[in-house]
């Protein structure tokens, strides 16, 4: 990276407490790509100052005493001089003959070493050369240490930079803005102006609810004179039940939620939705993130757990499951547990534990033993089903029974009239038993014929009617939540799996947390999942809060302060604003882990409200946004693509939670899987939000996949945002989206007959929360006229939709719904 700006020669143009100098320095290094080693100059090379840190940073992660890649360790002078598998690597005094230099001098853009990394910078190579030339001085008692992740450092609350409000380029509304403003000043970057109110309300709606604002809401906000209009809008959105859907979906990505098992059978998990419902509800009532997490990891181990807390343990029941006939079930059980360990690591610790499944982690301080100690926490978590029939299901069933019962009563009454005389009470109750059986036989009267006058007229009709009606009897709901229950007897022992092969047992291990992290204090003699869950939220755990705060930031600013949300290790991205991240992490904790409070804090900052336009500040068009001089705009998520179509067209069914839905799909899509049944949802269900579309792992819904919904095989902490022709074809031609355009087109014509410009204006407002510019309006009116003429040219067709203003207006709405702006959150 080439430095974009000169490093300011003087940092005291504003007053900062001493500690913040480090902060500024880190910022500079991180943002501007300034090499952190001193430039090669006339000064002599000093091992401790120049060489040691360089070796630690660039070489030691592989060439340490433990890993010795290529047989080489660079930890001490003795080890370095001993060389590796290829012999000596350096000859003091003779850089020309030193193999080390040969390896690190780049040819073109790459060098042999550091392997798979960007090569050393010229000044770094110069340091090494000079050092070797000068005799490779290295004090014999000086041992180097491999780099450790920044994220393992203690989490302390940094002081908020005390900036002078008056000279600030943007309003310093809360501490977030102060941290960000320091970065702007250091980099001499002009922040973008705030976005206009129309952009802001659409941004807030999409970020907090995943739905577009209604035209009425836009008008009210734009015209409001209230000083706290923005804050009030935020509060109302945080209180909306759709908030839980939007933020629940983020969580379901991490939970690799799906409605089927995966693999060959891929059978349905018909009650998987119970967990989804729990997530939505928990987020809506702002269950603090610590309790939210503890319940999901170990709700079953809480004192007298509630049904809700047991349902929460469904988090780790979302793993793929292979039930193919003849498969090695124990192998796939271990694969599920490995996924649980990996997911726990990524979601709460931001650690890629999976690397330690087969061997010690190459870069982060996670040993293979650590991995299987974590495995041990989950090895006795048995998979159970918990009765979880919801009150609304019972009510729904009651209503259905009320519709079904009257006709049944008449049939039973008629049946009585066929009874032979003199039936004993036992015989009568035998009849009742068969008819009321939970799963009645297909021909319930067949074995009872001896009790009836079957020769009488009407018997056979009645018998048929009873059979038919009984088949239609509503099935009583029996919903089972997928949950954990700790195994108490015949507990499994846990061993290290040598090279990750589960049948090759290494050392026996007990539940425990990685040695590099603060120790876990167990409640009993043996730590359990509840101890693990609580340990995540101990004050001294440096990771959980950082990872959680970063993830919320990522959903609101488009990118995390750490760009690799599931990897806070040495090989993950460095934070762009380390002090801001730590402040947010401690603030999250201080706010009692209230997700809504932290979100409120972030979205009410000036930083969040900046314009996302690249042209907002002349001259900064091609400047990267690592300094957060503007907001990021991004294409909305797959589910939101569907939701905004349905919402704008007025078709959206806003039912929250409950069972999943199956929108129409052509057979050639469903039949690639084995015995996939796809009975299309009827009525309003067809128009429910995208997050409710049943996710069948071997036949994922194509529209969702086209827009980068995760495939739910493993936890997903950051979705791709691709931009493909398949997306264009979907938006243009998918029958569901076309239906949205048609319905909205008809509605606009109904509301504004004979007034195309106004209809276009209204469509724009519904879809984009703004009016078209004159130029845009002209383009659209010209399009309307052309499209009307085109449809008139096809008048010989019988289809009403193709030769009328409706057709033209539908096509115009379709144009607006295909605009980049429609599917982008600016």
């Amino acid at each position, binding site marked *: 990276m080439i430095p974009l700006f000169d490093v300011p020669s003087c940092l005291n143009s504003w007053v900062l407490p001493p500690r913040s100098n480090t902060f500024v320095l880190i910022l500079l290094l991180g943002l501007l790509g300034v090499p952190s080693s001193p430039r090669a100059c006339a000064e002599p090379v000093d091992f401790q100052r120049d060489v040691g840190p360089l070796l630690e940073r660039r070489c030691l992660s592989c060439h340490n005493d433990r890993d010795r890649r290529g047989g080489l360790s660079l930890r001490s002078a003795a080890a370095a001089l001993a060389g590796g598998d290829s012999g000596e690597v350096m000859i003091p005094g003779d850089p020309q003959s030193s193999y080390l230099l040969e390896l690190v001098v780049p040819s073109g853009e790459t060098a042999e070493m550091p392997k*798979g990394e960007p090569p050393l910078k010229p000044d770094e190579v110069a340091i090494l050369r000079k050092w070797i030339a000068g005799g490779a001085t290295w004090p014999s008692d000086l041992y180097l240490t491999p780099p450790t992740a920044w994220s393992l450092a203690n989490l302390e609350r940094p002081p908020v930079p005390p900036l002078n409000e008056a000279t600030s380029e943007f309003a310093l509304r809360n501490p977030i803005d102060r941290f960000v403003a320091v970065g702007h000043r250091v980099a001499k970057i002009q922040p973008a102006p705030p976005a206009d109110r129309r952009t802001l309300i659409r941004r807030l709606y999409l970020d907090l609810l995943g739905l577009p604002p209604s035209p009425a809401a836009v008008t009210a906000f734009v015209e409001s004179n209230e000083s706290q209009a923005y804050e009030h809008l935020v509060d109302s959105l945080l209180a909306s039940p759709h908030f839980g859907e939007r933020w629940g979906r983020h969580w379901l990505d991490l939970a690799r939620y799906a409605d089927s098992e995966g*693999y*060959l059978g891929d059978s349905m998990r018909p009650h998987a939705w119970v967990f989804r419902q729990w997530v939505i509800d928990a987020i809506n009532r702002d269950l603090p993130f610590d309790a939210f997490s503890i319940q999901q990891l170990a709700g079953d181990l809480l004192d007298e757990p509630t049904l809700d807390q047991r349902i929460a343990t469904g988090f780790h029941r979302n793993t*793929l499951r292979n039930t*193919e*006939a*003849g*498969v090695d079930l124990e192998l796939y059980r271990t694969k599920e547990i490995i996924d649980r360990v990996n997911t726990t690591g990524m979601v709460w610790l931001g650690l*890629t534990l*999976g*690397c330690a499944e087969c061997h010690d982690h190459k870069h982060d301080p996670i040993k293979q033993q650590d991995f299987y100690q974590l495995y041990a926490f989950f090895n006795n978590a048995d998979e159970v089903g918990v009765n979880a029939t919801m009150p609304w299901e019972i009510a729904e069933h009651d209503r259905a029974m009320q519709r079904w019962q009257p006709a049944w009563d008449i049939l039973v009454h008629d049946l009585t009239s066929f009874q032979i005389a003199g039936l004993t009470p036992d015989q009568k109750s035998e009849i009742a038993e068969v008819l009321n059986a939970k799963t009645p036989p297909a021909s319930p009267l067949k074995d009872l014929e001896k009790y009836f006058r079957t020769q009488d007229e009407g018997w056979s009709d009645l018998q048929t009617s009873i059979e038919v009606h009984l088949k239609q009897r509503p099935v009583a709901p029996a919903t089972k939540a997928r949950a954990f229950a700790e195994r108490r007897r015949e507990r499994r022992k846990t061993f290290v799996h040598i090279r990750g092969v589960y049948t090759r047992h290494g050392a026996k291990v007990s539940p425990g947390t990685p040695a590099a992290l603060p120790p876990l204090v167990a409640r009993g003699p043996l730590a359990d999942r509840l101890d693990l869950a609580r340990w995540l939220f101990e004050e001294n755990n440096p990771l959980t809060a950082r990872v959680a705060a970063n993830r919320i930031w990522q959903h609101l600013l488009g990118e995390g302060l750490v760009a690799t949300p*599931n*990897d806070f290790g040495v*090989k993950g991205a460095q934070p762009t604003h380390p002090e801001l991240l730590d402040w947010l992490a401690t603030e999250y904790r201080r706010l009692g882990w209230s997700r809504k409070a932290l979100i409120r804090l972030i979205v009410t900052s000036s930083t969040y409200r900046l314009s996302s*336009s*690249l*042209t907002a500040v002349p001259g900064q068009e091609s400047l990267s946004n690592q300094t957060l001089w503007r907001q990021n705009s991004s*294409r909305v998520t797959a589910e939101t693509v569907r939701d905004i179509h349905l919402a704008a067209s007025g078709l959206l069914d806003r039912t929250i939670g409950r069972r999943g839905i199956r929108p129409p799909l*052509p057979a*050639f*899509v469903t*039949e*690639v*899987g*084995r015995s*996939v049944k796809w009975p299309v949802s009827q009525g309003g269900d067809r128009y429910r939000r995208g997050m409710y579309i049943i996710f069948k792992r*071997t*036949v994922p819904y194509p529209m969702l*996949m086209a827009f*980068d919904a995760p*495939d739910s*095989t*493993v936890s997903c902490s950051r979705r791709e945002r691709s931009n*493909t*022709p*398949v997306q*264009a*074809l979907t938006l243009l*031609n998918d*029958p569901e989206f*076309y239906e949205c355009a048609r319905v909205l087109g008809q509605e606009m014509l109904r509301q504004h007959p004979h007034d195309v410009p106004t209809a276009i204006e209204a469509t724009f407002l519904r879809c984009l929360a703004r009016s078209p510019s004159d*130029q*845009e309006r002209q*383009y659209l009116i010209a*399009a309307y*006229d*052309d*499209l009307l003429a*085109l449809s008139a040219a*096809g008048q010989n*067709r019988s289809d009403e*939709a*193709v030769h009328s203003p409706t057709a033209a207006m539908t*096509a115009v709405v*379709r*144009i607006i719904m295909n*605009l*980049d*702006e429609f599917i982008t959150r*600016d």
Partner: protein
Amino acid sequence: MTAQHHHECEIDLPTLNRRRFFATGASGLGTLALASLLNDDGLLASETPSHVTHFAPRAKRCIYLFMEGGPSQMDLFDPKPRLNELDGQPMPESILQEIKFAFIQKESARLMGSPRTFRRYGKCGMELSDLLPHLSTCVDDIALVRSMHGEQFNHLPGQLMMLSGSALQGWPTLGSWLNYGLGSESNNLPGYVVFATLGRGLPGGASSWSSGFLPSQYSGTLFRNQGSPVLNLANPAGMSRDVQARSLQTINELNRVRLQRIGNPEVASRMEAYELAFRMQQNAPELLDLSGETATTLAEYGVSRDEASQSDKSGFLGSYARNCLLARRMIERGVRFVNLFLSTWDHHSNLDSGLNRYTKISDQPVAALLKDLKRRGLLDETLVVWGGEFGRTPLGENRVNFKKVTGRDHHPYSFSMWMAGGGVRGGQIIGETDEIGWGVAQDPVHVHDLHATILHLFGLDHKKLTYRFQGRDFRLTDVEGNVVKQLLA
């Protein structure tokens, strides 16, 4: 994508009026309008990612003929006279102890010979079964590997292993890796295309062409061989091509206004995506239109075989032949990777009739494809791969509820595959199995080795083609794989 494609015509779009629009006619305008919109802004040239091979490639495109279910190698490719002699005998105890089966009962299991007759064909004298009369005329172009082996003895894990190098769901498939590594050469079609001829559906469904943890643009696109070939390719019912073209014009006009306003290159990418989508709409239907093919070609593939064989109710004969021909048409249009699934060869019972049926479906069109590619000079740069996820046991399958033993169980420990074209040395056999066809006796080729070799043929070092995910650099070959030098021409 390169810029020169878009210099077909200069139209100044902002001044284009209605009269001009109708005078030009929609057929040409859509493409031109979109192209010029993008080209005028100089947006296309800079978007091309640079894809570099590690060394000179021999293959540029691949047709993978995936035989789902596990075809029986000793009845097709690997004659075992000793097995025939031992027909009805129990297996050697030493082998039985160490193995697992999906369905076979070990105690009563008996070896099952093959009723097929094998003969030598071609200059190379390759032995093939009487079930492959057409392929036997191509043996000098194919390299037969009789020593394939793996570990997965269940369908989906085996298929995922063969397709993605991992038995777990969620890894990118071969076609995704190739497109990730090399990019697409087609301006009008996706770089990774899938056709499926389905018995009872694929065990993995769409995960059989998933991009796994690679970005979704590298996933395969499922094509139908008739009607509208791709999901959502056809305009909504009743919407004419003219309306579509006119609509796209305005979509791009407005997107361009936005691009100028906010300067975000993502908007330009979206305009480009719409252009490609429209070109797909124009070109993909042409792909399925076989009216330009000669009667000889159609007959050679056997495209109209359904009519000739009324006894076959499935319609696979013509359909699979059509897919093979379409694969060639795809390759001609620059598609990088075409995977043709044929399901299913999973003959636990009625092996004879099953093999008869599936070789009848596939033998003629596959041989026709090889010859057709060769005649057109396409075989040199087109790698053709034939194989399933594993083979079948030399033991007859005596599943508990089977009345008679008429089939074979899954067998990953040795099986056959073949490759042709794309830098593969034809007319040779690689590897040997032991005398009963249980294990590999010589020159074992693991699934990872196959993958390493395929990437090698494309000029890619399988150790260097990596993608970072969850903190690790992942490869198609995981941490294994050796290039099989003997396969290379």
